[in-house]
Each structure stands twice: as structure tokens, then as C-alpha cells.
């Protein structure tokens, strides 16, 4: 079974490409990914909000048995990232040259990258990955 999330990825492209979420006008909750109803107060009074791509590593691992579509990357680093505005995501951590860049609490940024090719036409799915911030 080959993953085919192309349509899903397309529907979510504003969140997956540009980190677009929402701020709830009713309760002030910061929401990611973009939704129709606020998960806290269920208001539909949501404003679009682009989240900062800067954050820090909460936890990480190195994956040797890859996820479907990630075979060419294996082994690859993967982690949970908390963005500056408090929301969390998990994604591949790329451009690591030394494991010391992977300490918990280390700053990273989310960048736009190719994820995998899917579906019968081999359409490319894009999304975000994290990379270390080299000052």
C-alpha cells in the first residue's frame, strides 16, 4: 500500500507550506494547523495567522527503519519542535552535520522541503522540515 496523501496535502497547503494557522477572536487560542472551529471554545470566529518558523527541539530520535516515502533519507533525524508561539509539531530534522546540533532546547527553524512523491502520477508532496540555525 502506497501512501497517497496528495489531495490531503493540497487541502492543507497553507499550513504545510506557509505555517498558516489561526488565532481565535473569541478566546485568543493560537491554533495550528488551520481549522474551521476553535478546538478550545468551538467558535468559528477565527483569524488567519502565520506562525513564526523559529523554535526549539523538545525531543528527537534517529530513524533507521523509515516511514513510507522517506526511504531515501534513512537513517534520518526526527523530532518534536516547539515553535516560539508555543505550538508543537513533529517532523524530520535535516541538514545536521553533527549530533551536538540536536540537544534538547537547541534552536531550529522550519523550512520548506520536499517530503515524498505519491499517487500514480508521482506528484510531489511538500511540507516543512526543521534545520539547525547556524548563526
Amino acid at each position, binding site marked *: *500500500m502506497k501512501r497517497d496523501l496528495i489531495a490531503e*496535502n493540497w487541502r492543507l497547503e497553507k499550513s504545510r507550506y506557509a505555517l498558516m494557522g489561526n488565532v481565535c477572536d473569541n478566546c485568543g487560542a493560537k491554533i495550528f494547523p488551520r481549522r474551521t472551529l476553535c478546538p478550545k471554545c468551538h467558535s468559528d470566529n477565527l483569524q488567519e495567522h502565520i506562525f513564526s518558523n523559529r523554535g526549539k527541539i523538545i525531543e*528527537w530520535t534517529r530513524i533507521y527503519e523509515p516511514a*513510507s516515502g522517506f526511504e531515501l533519507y534513512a537513517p534520518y533525524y526526527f523530532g518534536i519542535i516547539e515553535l516560539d508561539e508555543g505550538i508543537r509539531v*513533529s517532523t*524530520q530534522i535535516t541538514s545536521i552535520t553533527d549530533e551536538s546540533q540536536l540537544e534538547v532546547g537547541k534552536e531550529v527553524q522550519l523550512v520548506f522541503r520536499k517530503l515524498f512523491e505519491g499517487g500514480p502520477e508521482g506528484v510531489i508532496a511538500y511540507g516543512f522540515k526543521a534545520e539547525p540555525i547556524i548563526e
Partner: protein
Amino acid sequence: MAKQLMDKTVVIGFDMTKFGDLYELGITDIADLAIHGALKSAKMNASDIDSLYVGNAMSGQFLGQENLGNLIATETGLDCEALKIEAAGASSAVALRVAAHAILSGYKEKVMVLGVEKMTSFTKMNEIQAALATGLDATWESSLGATLPANFAMMARAHIRKFGTTAEQLATVAIKNHDNARLNPRAQYKNKLRLESVLNSKMVADPIHLFESCAASDGAAAIILTSPEVAESYVKEPVYMRTSFQGHDKIQMYNREKLWFLESVKRASDLVYSRANITAKDISFAEVHDVFTIAEIMAIEALGLVPVGEGGKATVDGVTSLNGEIPINPSGGLKARGYPIGAAGIAQVIEIMEQFNNLAGKRQLKDINYALTQSLGGAGGTAVVSLFSR
């Protein structure tokens, strides 16, 4: 919480197949063996069963087969109402709870609860990895590169960081469960594991090694559940399922507060203990969801069977061994008895039944009072804890 006058149900029949690569047998064959074994053990006929509840996680993905309840009810000759219940690794544990609800409501009298999975003959390793990842959030975890072992690996790293849990302590869970499985004729792996072989086995997701993970397996386990009143005509000394609860946590692991603790398991077991008016100290032994070694350590901590942070130490100290203070996974667990995903929850119940009925042979425990089963779905977003006693 729903008002219930009583929670007790009774297991009046049970049987399971051997777990492992059952190349010659299809999913309906293994289901047939477990179901008819359970009927025979209760001296019942197929026509005595009201409903068939099938716990199964992957038949659509591995076999291209859905509507599994209807298929199995047809092929096993039960020819009754049937449904499939899916909750990843907790599928048949949830099916057991749903069956108990049907009986306690008075809506059903005798329910066959089957856990079944056929994993070995139809898939390659990377396809199994992809199938396991469907228990996570497909859009925001696995399609961004997450795998099931990767999520447990991050729990392990958080546990190691917070409590100083060691690679040796983690590996000892697998070694202990293989030792137990050596005494279980239906176990998949009866080989003795050495510490060096675990630590030198291939890394799956750092720090989880291949020999700390479950392998693909085929198997089925079935029980017949009924009310205490109906059970009187079938068993002299009933074993009761006293109560059972399901605990929830967020499916996405990144949205959980503590990576080093299984909150869903604590939620379920807190409800079980308070409902039964007991504490963790009253538990004689438990079958827990050791899908990876870290999962057993975190399960026994969340169940309150050992202090939080000391699961690894307790394992190395022998506290959870067959002759320890609180034996964990006397069957060999998911690791060594085997993990046909959908069958796991009911296979745990069968170990409980064999222990209470003095049928556990060389792994027989003495002076048992209360016993627990604990299942996980996905990376711990779903947990089921069920309590058994005489």
C-alpha cells in the same frame, strides 16, 4: 460516568492459536481454531452465541478485507450478528469492553470476543512499518516522517533523560519476556535472549533496537463473555472481569505534556482501582502492552505497580520476573509470546484465565488475587485496563 449497578462479567470459555508465522493458515482458519476451541472449552455450540465482536487492526491493509465480522461469522459457522472493532493495538481490548457493555446492559447474553490478525504472508517489512504508522496521525505525524518506533524512541529518550533509565534496563524487559515465553507452548519466540544480542541488534529508532521490538505475527484468541447469572450453568468457580476502563490521550505525541509518562494508562487504571475499591498494591500480576521495551517500563509505572521512574531498575532487580514481587507478562508478552496486533488484548485475557485456572504449566503463579490486563493503541493515545479476580 454512566450509572451501573454492577460491573462484573464472566469469561466462561477461552482458547487461542499458537502465535507466529502460521503460513498454512488464513485469517478465517486461525479465527475458526480459536472460536471453536473456546466453544469446546465451555461445552457450547455455535448456536449458543448471540454476537461476535472481532478486534482487528489491519485486515483492510494487509488482506484487502473489510467487513471482517461478517466474513468470520460466516466462515466459522457462528452465523450471528458480528462486527469488527478497530483501535490499533488496543482493538481486541476495546472489543472486550464493548462486549461487557452489551452484557451489562442486558442486551446480549453470550458474546464471543475474538482478537485476530494475519500479518506475515502478505507484506514486506516496510509495508508493516507503514501499516503500524497508520495508528498515528497520518497527516501530521507519519506523512512528515514519523514511525511508531520513532514515537516510542522519543518517549524512551525522555525517560532516559529524566530518570537515568539505561540501555541495559530497557533490554532486560525483552530478556525477561523471552525467559517467560520459554515456558509458554504457544509463544512465538522461545529462544533465550542475551544482553549483548539485544544491544548489538540493529537500531530501529534510537535507542530502540530490533530485539526490543515486536515482530510480525499471525494468531487468534477468543473468549466467551457472559453475565454472572448465565455463567452459573457453565462454570463452578468463575473468574470475573471486575471492571474495565479506557483512557484517552492526544493521538499526536507532540501534543502530550509528558513524553516520559503514559497518561492514558493512568487515566484508565485510576478508574479501575477506584471502581473496584482496591489499589495497585492489591494486584498479583499483570499482562501489559510491551510493544517496545520502553512501553512495558512506562506501563508498569503508569499502572502504579512500581514507582514512576523506577520501572527499569525494578526490571533489572527482578521485581517483575516470574518469581518476583509483581510478575509482568508471565505469558512472554507481546515481545515473545507474539503480537498479532488485533489479537493482543484477548491473548492477555487468556493468560489471566490460565493462571487463575491453574493451567499455566511451568509458568504457573501462586496465591493470585487480582490481575490486570493493559493494552495500548497507537503510540499510547488509547489505553484499556481491565481487572480480573475470582
